[in-house]
């Protein structure tokens, strides 16, 4: 019987992936980044199983244990409401990761198509989209986000919206620059000569070819967005207590920093490691996927 001959002839794509994988795995720093990110994901998935005091991690206080210094039972100590900081940090990863993923998705989904449209059509459409993005880029992103949260009212949801607004133009710029170089390539011309519609050209020919730098950028930005979310949390504009959030924890621990150092320090270390992990992973990806950056 005749069937689609798909499984007979494979391997081309695979070969390319394997090569990229080779460069990806060759760099020990990338492996470290990957390990950090994977463990972070696992920790946030299995937070309830890993955390020694899951109910405290979620926000139940136990005032009699307040401000215990780190000991064998409570490795990271407890906070001013007697909650286990290790559990809070573990549950905090959930909030941070989820929020960062949502922000990245919003930003990529809005920014990339706009950039492709701007780059592909050029002219007036390009001017309108790019001037809009320039306007937003003219503000410091965190400041703009603070202003937006101030208008919308502080909550995690609003913090995510507030971070998406100043962030999408980066993806628009990236996608636009890629599109402009791709638009002149002959395979796009060939598709136009055949009569393929503009939408299909953008979707089938341009988008897949500009995805690589976008994925790299998104990985790098995960770290920055987690950092910014923590910043908003620190200012009281993001996650609201008792939901665990690294930024909020640092801010709450601020008044105790001289005597109870562990309160602010451990969430800070968590942010540091997370951002480092995503940056290392992003750099490794960029190197593996872009032959020009291979050493």
């Amino acid at each position, binding site marked *: 019987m*005749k*069937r*689609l*001959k*798909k499984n*007979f*002839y*494979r*391997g*081309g*794509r695979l*070969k*390319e992936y394997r090569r990229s994988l080779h460069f990806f795995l060759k760099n020990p720093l990338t492996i470290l980044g990957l390990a950090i990110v994977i463990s972070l994901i696992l920790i946030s998935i299995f937070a309830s199983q890993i955390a020694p005091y899951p109910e405290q991690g979620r926000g139940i206080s136990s005032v009699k244990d307040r401000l215990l210094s780190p000991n064998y039972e409570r490795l990271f100590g407890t906070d001013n409401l007697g909650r286990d900081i290790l559990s809070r940090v573990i549950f905090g990863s959930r909030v941070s990761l989820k929020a960062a993923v949502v922000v990245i998705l919003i930003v990529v989904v809005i920014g990339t198509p706009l950039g492709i449209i701007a780059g592909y059509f050029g002219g007036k459409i390009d001017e309108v989209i790019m001037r809009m993005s320039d306007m937003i880029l003219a503000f410091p992103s965190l400041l703009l986000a603070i202003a937006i949260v101030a208008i919308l009212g502080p909550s995690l949801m609003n913090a995510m919206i507030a971070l998406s607004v100043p962030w999408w133009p980066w993806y628009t710029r990236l996608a636009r620059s890629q599109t402009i170089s791709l638009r002149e*390539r*002959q*395979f796009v*011309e*060939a*598709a*136009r*000569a*055949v*009569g*393929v519609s503009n939408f*299909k050209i953008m979707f*089938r*020919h341009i988008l*897949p*070819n500009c995805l690589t730098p976008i994925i790299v950028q998104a990985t790098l930005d995960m770290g920055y967005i987690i950092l910014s979310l923590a910043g908003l949390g620190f200012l009281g504009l993001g996650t609201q207590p008792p939901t665990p959030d690294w930024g909020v924890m640092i801010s709450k621990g601020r008044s105790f920093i001289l005597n109870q150092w562990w309160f602010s320090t451990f969430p800070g270390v968590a942010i540091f490691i997370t951002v480092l992990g995503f940056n290392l992973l992003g750099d490794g990806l960029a190197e593996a996927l872009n032959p020009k950056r291979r050493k």
Partner: protein
Amino acid sequence: MSPLVEVKNLRKYFSVIRGFWQRGKEYVKAVEDVSFSIRQGETVGLVGESGCGKTTIGRTILRLIAPTAGEVFFKKRSLFALEDEELRKTRKMMGVVFQDPYTSLNPRMNIQSIVGEPLRTHSNLKGLELQERVIGLLGQVGLKEDALYRYPHEFSGGQRQRIGIARALAMDPEFIVLDEPTSALDVSVQAQVLNLIIELQKKLNLTYLFISHDLIVVNYIADRIMVMYLGRIVETGPANTIFNHPLHPYAKALISAVPIPDVHQQRKEILLQGNVPSPINVPSGCSFHTRCPEMKNEICKREVPPLKKIDEEHYVACHLV
């Protein structure tokens, strides 16, 4: 026989942005008043050096860019008046093969998707039917069906160009623009691809516009040759005539530069002085007069020479002929 493609007084100027304040005040005159026609079943060669407007003509005929002035008729219908459905139907009858086989195939699509794209755009073929058609097309250009799910980077330049040809053939076109299809290939592979192109023409009754800067290649494949210089056609005629008895000084110089594979035969090579003038500031009168070794009269500097009929089909744009 009536012409399949007819180009009338085609002009294409590209505006040049000079600084911020004076946009579009200067133009690159890529194509200047070009007229010609291509008959059904013939191969017309378009030669000239880089930047003389060959590719621009090809792209205009395919309606990839709009001309500044002039018209292109395909099967007696004005190409630039066509809309939607009519345009789609016309596009089906035209194909194109590009110069660079490395950028003309989407690196993220497999061969089945690339060759099948015109089919998906213009027909309802799907799944197995589509695949069989693609296999048929690959067979026509000498590729096996194991290419289907492979990606362009796994093929050599010659094979990629075959894939490009298969894509151009997908909708059974009548007319194909070949834009330097062999200039990016090794000489040995060039010959194979050229022979394939000739073979396909005989089998499928195709009409070609063959754009190239390589005179030997054009002489090998074309029935008629048009020689271009700075956006104008300076001489046009049957391939043999142009190759053996060129009349225009530029055509003479071009053909004298073709190497002859015979050590004993001597031929005087005409060396042109200077560079091609910028297409932004085209010289007055005959655009070739600044480099013409035979220029004598003042008229060359003043007046643009019209195409003069020398013989049946043989036209030259020179005041001296």
